[in-house]
């Protein structure tokens, strides 16, 4: 079946089997391998991407055909203008990642979370990230990273020169 999906601003037109999971579409059709797969049960969140700018979805619990005509943002779309996104910077500064496998999904869930709640408490961050699993960090530095990102993102953007 023919689908047209905009991923990180680029339109991908492909002919796919209906059973193709969005995660595999992104990895194998778009060659965006930052979206990972860690389970079959919509549990781990390694595959989380952003749909239509405001929804974090588990792309291995969704078929590519469902994303037809939609806008998807993957981890590869986070950094803008050659600079890391504040969320990426936060994860780096606060040592919010170790093996890096859960990191893309974790950051994209945080991206949507901060879109809805620009100033979350530690408790709200922990609640908001509870759909993503991490085996390495014990979560504490991830929470710090998201807090740092929230603070940076709340600053008014510097006036262009």
């Amino acid at each position, binding site marked *: 079946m023919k689908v047209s999906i905009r991923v990180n601003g680029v339109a991908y037109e492909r002919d796919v089997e209906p059973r193709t999971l969005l995660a595999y579409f992104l990895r194998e059709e778009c060659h965006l391998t930052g979206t990972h797969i860690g389970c*079959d049960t*919509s549990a781990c969140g390694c595959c989380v991407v952003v749909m239509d700018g405001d929804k974090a979805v588990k792309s291995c619990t969704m*078929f590519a055909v469902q994303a037809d005509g939609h806008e998807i943002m993957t981890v590869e779309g986070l950094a803008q203008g050659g600079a890391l996104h504040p969320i990426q910077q936060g994860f780096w500064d606060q040592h919010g990642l170790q093996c890096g496998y859960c990191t893309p999904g974790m950051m994209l*869930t945080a991206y949507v979370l901060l879109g809805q709640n620009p100033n979350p408490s530690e408790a709200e961050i922990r609640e908001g990230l509870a*759909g993503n699993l991490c085996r390495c960090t014990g979560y504490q530095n991830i929470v710090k990273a998201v807090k740092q990102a929230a603070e940076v993102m709340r600053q008014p953007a510097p006036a262009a020169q």
Partner: protein
Amino acid sequence: MIPAAFEYIRAHSADEAFAALQKHGAEARVLAGGQSLVPAMRFRLARPAALVDINAVRELDYIRLDGGLTIGATARDSAVERAPWIKDTTWSLLHDVSRVVADPVVRQMATVVGSLCHNDPAGDWTTAALAARAEVLVRGRSGERAVPIDEFLVDSFTTAVAEGEIALAVRFPGSGDRTAGSYQKVERKVGDFATAAAAVQLTLNADGTIKAAGVALSAAGPCAVRVPQAEQRLVGQKPTADLIRAAAEAASQKSEPQADLRGSVEYKKHLAGVLVSRGLRQALARLGVQA
């Protein structure tokens, strides 16, 4: 894993969806949030010949305050969770559920109606729907009909939605102010089905006596179960510690859980009582009543 092959039909209207289901009958499944269906398909336990995707059906993507509350078939759990009015005491039961069902990411895809149709024995929305005496709007050959939730939930993973039919919405009756509820869930971790859970909905009279009561349990039978004994015990009474104890006792008796990795039968029966009593206290507290 990758699901078995299937035919994909994208519906753009309720009519299209209904037509497609009529065409494919038992071999078709409706794809809404897909958060239970897709994993089952990945294990190839579910292998529908056709999927009718209703996510593009705009007319079903709504949450309407119309005296009561009507939630369309493609409205997400997260939409309920974030609705501006959801913090009103009247809807406290639904607010509670919207924050503990599945996990925060799954909730952004999962739908309330989809979870009712899946009718997992340990479901959250099914239990809340029982306590709140909701009804499900089902479209069949003879047109649309409103099915009271007690009739809708037939058996494990089985509902009153027949082959070729589709559930369009769920309607929670409005019961004015002086109504509050509570959802108490014990889960092993976020994203888990309930080890045990209790949904409670109370409406008080001006004199402080209980006008209407809804008490239901999750993971306590083939599917969500109402506890009429508790409801009857509560209605007409002034809330007291003894009354709550009696209702909790009735719930514990009514609970017929299965032993599984989440817990033993005795533990789950015990929890049913504990959670109903905690739910009643919280619902009353939300109405400014201490018992």
